[in-house]
């Protein structure tokens, strides 16, 4: 309606244009500006502002009708142009605002859609994730079962290996035990040997002790024997002295290099050319035997002598028999036979001259040599 009203105004102006002056540029521009503004968004979006522009243009037109070329008409047209341009700008601004609001609405809607889609996607993703997780869990369960089986297998294998190792260890332990037993046995044997050695040593020691004791006993015995021997020796010496004194009283007794020599006259012992002891001779030999038996462990040599008359062989034989007779008699009286020797000396070793009866009587003799040391 405003446009039609404006068109009528323009038509009126055109009618007067032929008889009036030409409209100033300001008014022409104002008309064009209003035309532009009325065809833009201002008519729909800012009709009030467009109406103000229209009123301003009306004022300019009315002033143009009254004062076509006045400054007032130009200024009103100028203001009308600015009002029209302002209405157009405000319309554009409103359009931009509407566009912005629409864009914001679209943005919000799009955001909502995106959020909704995102939620759906999220839901789908969660569902797929859950499915994938379930599948993963399933696979994991399968893997776990497989791993468990492998682990069981490994455990069994390890157990088997451990058992094998334990068997080996048992064998090793057995070997070690055997070795230790052997070592122990060896040690025991060694100890036994040591013990035996010790026992032996002890036994030796005991034996040595016993030997020592025995030796001591022997020593004591020997000492006792020595003492006894001394006593015996003393007694023997006494007996010997007694025997020697007795023998000295019985016959001639001389101390020679070979020992004591007891000389018995042959006339006392034997008849001439006889080898049998006369009774007085036996009595004398009994005394001699008694004296000799008082002296133990002395070797005796009975030597028979003759005078120089007669053959030597005869004298030799006679002297031997006479020595044997004395020897036998002494043995019968108890003197040890092994300690008595009998030797016939014949006419050898005369003690006197054979040219006289007295001398020959002295040469017919029997000598009993009592050796100094007894020989077993």
């Amino acid at each position: 309606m405003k446009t039609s009203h404006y068109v009528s105004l323009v038509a009126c102006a055109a009618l007067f244009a032929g008889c009036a002056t030409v409209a100033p540029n300001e008014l022409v521009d104002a008309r064009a500006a209003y035309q532009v503004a009325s065809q833009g968004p201002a008519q729909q979006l800012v009709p009030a502002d467009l109406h103000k522009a229209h009123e301003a243009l009306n004022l300019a037109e009315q002033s143009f009708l009254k004062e076509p070329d006045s400054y007032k008409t130009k200024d009103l047209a100028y203001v009308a142009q600015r009002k029209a341009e302002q209405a157009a700008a405000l319309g554009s601004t409103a359009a931009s605002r509407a566009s912005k609001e629409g864009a914001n609405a679209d943005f919000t809607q799009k955001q909502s859609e995106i959020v909704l889609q995102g939620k759906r996607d999220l839901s789908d993703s969660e569902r797929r994730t859950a499915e994938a997780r379930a599948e993963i869990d399933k696979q994991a369960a399968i893997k776990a079962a497989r791993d468990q089986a492998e682990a069981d297998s490994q455990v069994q294998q390890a157990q088997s290996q451990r058992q094998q190792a334990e068997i080996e260890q048992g064998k090793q332990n057995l070997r070690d035990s055997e070795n230790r037993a052997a070592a122990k046995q060896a040690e025991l044997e060694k100890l036994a040997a040591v013990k035996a050695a010790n026992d032996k040593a002890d036994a030796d020691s005991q034996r040595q002790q016993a030997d020592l004791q025995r030796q001591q006993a022997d020593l004591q015995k020997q000492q006792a024997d020595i003492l006894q021997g001394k006593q015996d020796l003393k007694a023997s010496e006494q007996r010997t002295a007694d025997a020697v004194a007795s023998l000295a009283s019985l016959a001639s007794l001389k101390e020679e290099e070979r020992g004591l020599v007891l000389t018995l006259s042959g006339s006392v012992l034997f008849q001439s050319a006889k080898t049998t002891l006369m009774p007085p001779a036996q009595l004398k030999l009994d005394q001699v035997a008694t004296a000799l038996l008082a002296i133990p462990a002395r070797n005796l040599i009975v030597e028979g002598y003759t005078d120089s008359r007669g053959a030597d062989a005869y004298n030799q034989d006679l002297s031997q028999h006479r020595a044997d007779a004395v020897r036998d008699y002494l043995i019968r009286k108890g003197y040890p036979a092994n300690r008595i020797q009998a030797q016939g000396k014949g006419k050898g070793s005369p003690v006197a001259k054979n040219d006289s009866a007295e001398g020959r009587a002295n040469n017919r003799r029997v000598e009993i040599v009592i050796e100094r040391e007894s020989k077993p």
Partner: protein
Amino acid sequence: MTQRSRIGIKLFVVAAATTIFAGCASVPLRTEASTSGIRTAEEAGAANVPQAALHLQLAREEQETAKNWAARGEKEKAQSMLMRAESDAELAVALSHQDAERSEALAAVERVRQLRKDNQ
């Protein structure tokens, strides 16, 4: 109440005052409305929008012209010139708002486009 409405009210008050005191020749030129309009345009960032900056400059020059005429005793011409200054200042404000709103709209559209592109 929007900023544009407040500006309109201010201009209306200034215009009414100008009209009331216009008949009195001895009344000095009242430039409050044009001055307020120019300051509003400056606050709206008209200096940063080429077309708005042009009209802001025109408003300043027209106000200065009006002052000169008023100084020479041409009160009516000065008063009419102040109407030019006021209309240029208002247009500078509208153009500043238009530019800002267009930029925001383009940004919103671009944001939607980018969003759609990112979520294809």
